[in-house]
């Protein structure tokens, strides 16, 4: 005899855990189904945890969540082949609790989050793949798993099955993923003694540093690199649009890009002696506002990466995931309380809650950003080179007067991009960021 739950959550990443926790905490019967060996075993993220989204779900998470370092310094680097020009923002303000963001190791963090989900009363089963949604006409009524007697029923199914969004595609809720809407990111975790990290990055105790990078490290493809400090390891990665990798098979592959990045003269000394602990690759939905599919229907809602909820410009994903998971669960709780069924009409509150939250507002703000950067590769090649050359010209003391140097810099810009091109690029950026 198959069981029926109030809510089935497919997936135990940040969005799935947020949904399962919120629903179970409110007293709903929740079954969460995870494909991996344990929650966190299949998950890949940089990873930065933005405190606010989790605070809304578990206010006292800092008491026992496995957090690595809180970020007190953010660096932005624009790199050419030999050098970088960068800004660093470091503030003791970030050293006052409660901290705003942390580096985390997802395998550990997800395990902790899942333990909270279980404490809240949800049933969590792992090593079980959901093959498809069970339909009664146009109403989702449950899921079928890859185990004997694998059918199980629920009023609402929350799809938190990740970027590939297999279930929603199978059910025809949205189309195939487009290579132009996903980035392929690779990363490594390099082990390093705590003292080495603290000396190299000028931090102490549990302070951490983030470096965001763009420029020639991505071989002219649209993408960025990053470096995060953990307690006793460094996470380092780079990602570009999958469509660009496909279009340039001979130019770059993710791993050569990462190797090149590690060998960059500004990066190599920071990671020297690091022992590789983990390497992984993952797709990131970066299509933004225009790529968000229909997110609810009769008996179902989509949360997290499956719904394309990632703000690529600010490298925010897990906080959108947790927020969408929470909002979906709150919608299910309200629908259950109202007692009028779980059709699309009763779940429409999910979409309005998303629209009112930072999730859709931020995605809307940057709606044109992906195409601006994608169609203008000069932002990743020419400009980084020009800026670095300008800095070198200006800062090298060689008997040439500064005025001549300025002229040289200006003409180098004009040579690479016409005046109209420069103005156009500035306008495009302004429009996209506005």
């Amino acid at each position, binding site marked *: 005899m198959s*069981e029926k739950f109030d809510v089935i959550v497919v997936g135990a990443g940040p969005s799935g855990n947020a949904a399962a926790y919120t629903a179970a905490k409110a007293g709903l019967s929740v*079954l969460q189904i995870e494909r991996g*060996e*344990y929650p966190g*075993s299949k998950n890949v993220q940089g990873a930065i945890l933005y405190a606010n989204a989790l605070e809304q779900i578990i206010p006292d998470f800092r008491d026992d969540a496995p957090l690595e370092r809180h970020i007190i310094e953010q660096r932005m680097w624009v790199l050419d082949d030999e050098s970088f020009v960068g800004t660093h923002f470091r503030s003791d303000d970030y050293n006052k609790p409660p901290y705003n963001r942390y580096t985390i*190791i997802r*395998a*550990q963090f997800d395990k902790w989050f899942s333990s909270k989900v279980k404490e809240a009363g949800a*049933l*969590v*089963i792992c090593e*079980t793949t959901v093959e498809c949604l069970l339909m009664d006409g146009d109403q989702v009524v449950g899921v079928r*798993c890859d*185990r*004997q*007697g*694998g*059918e*199980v029923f629920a009023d609402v199914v929350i799809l938190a099955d990740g970027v590939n969004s297999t279930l929603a595609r199978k059910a025809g809720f949205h189309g195939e993923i487009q290579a132009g809407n996903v980035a392929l990111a690779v990363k490594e975790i390099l*082990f390093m*003694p705590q003292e080495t990290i603290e000396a190299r990055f000028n931090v102490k105790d549990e302070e951490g540093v983030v470096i965001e990078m763009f420029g020639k490290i991505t071989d002219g493809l649209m993408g960025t690199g990053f470096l995060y400090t953990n307690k006793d390891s460094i996470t380092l990665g780079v990602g570009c649009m999958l469509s660009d990798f496909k279009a340039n098979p001979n130019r770059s592959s993710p791993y050569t890009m990462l190797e090149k990045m590690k060998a960059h003269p500004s990066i190599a000394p920071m990671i020297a002696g690091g*022992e590789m*602990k983990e390497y992984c690759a993952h797709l990131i939905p970066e299509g933004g506002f225009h790529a968000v599919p229909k997110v609810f229907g009769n008996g179902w809602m989509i949360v997290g990466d499956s719904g394309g909820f990632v703000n690529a410009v600010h490298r925010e994903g897990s906080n959108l995931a947790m927020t969408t998971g929470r909002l979906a669960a709150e919608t299910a709780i309200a629908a259950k309380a109202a007692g009028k069924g779980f059709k699309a009409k009763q779940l429409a509150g999910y979409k309005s809650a998303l629209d009112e939250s930072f999730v859709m507002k931020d995605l809307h703000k940057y709606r044109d950003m992906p195409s601006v950067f994608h169609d203008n590769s000069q932002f990743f090649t020419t400009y980084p080179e020009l800026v670095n050359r300008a800095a070198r010209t200006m800062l090298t003391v060689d008997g040439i007067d500064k005025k001549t140097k300025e002229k040289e810099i200006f003409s180098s810009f004009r040579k690479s991009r016409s005046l109209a091109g420069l103005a156009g690029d500035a306008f495009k950026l302004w429009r996209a960021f506005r």
Partner: protein
Amino acid sequence: MHIVVCIKQVPDSAQIRVHPVTNTIMRQGVPAIVNPYDLFALEEALRLKDKFGGKVTMLCMGPPQAEDALKKCISFGADDAVLVTDRSFAGADTLATSYALAAAIRQIGREQKVDIVFTGKQTIDGDTAQVGPGIAKRLGLQLLTYVSRIAELDLEANTITVERRAEGGVQVLKTAVPCLITMLEGTNEMRFAPLENMIHAARYPVRKWNKEAAGIEDVTKIGLKGSPTVVSKVFGPTPRAEKALMQSVDDASPRDVSLNVIQKIFTQHPTLERDILAKASV
């Protein structure tokens, strides 16, 4: 028939790292799994239950998190699970562990008589293969180690016949029940649990016994106090300097390839040729 299967929750050794400076095992973030050898014991126990009926009780000593390992065994089809967990068990070596587990099995036996105790061949973190035999000795059970197959179980006559891997062949052993079996790896394949069992296991309230509930009589025999083993030094293996040599076989006759290989071996081990020649002349 009542079978007790002892398991241990261990760090997944495939993902373990040794700290480069202190040489200690870094367990942080390493996933915990059921000792893989124990799963062969569990599957064998479940097969006996399928054939003869009865009950399979899981037993584990460890920290509270080891509950997950026991729940997993429930999902495979075990009927009951006991976690022996108490701070005073910490630091136990194989002597103290077998003492505590033997006490717990006696306690389980008071609820329902135990016919067979299963353990894995050894654990992947300690690799001693001592706990199973230790339990058998303490409980006065017939001991069958490295069992590759259970050939026959006669519940009328209370006898069991098993095949045991031994040096140079297979021993066929027949003995009386109750007995303790340490199961060899690769002897069976763990079943895939149906969904119903997964949900049942997620809900299953694993019984947790502290040292009193486990029936420990002598507290000096458990935990660090009851463990005479001393770890005097921990070190990582040094990688061997000599590496495998490549021998191309393209366009060469088997004779030439063999001669080449022999020549290379002799170059590496200069005394070998002399020794072989000396032997040959005898």
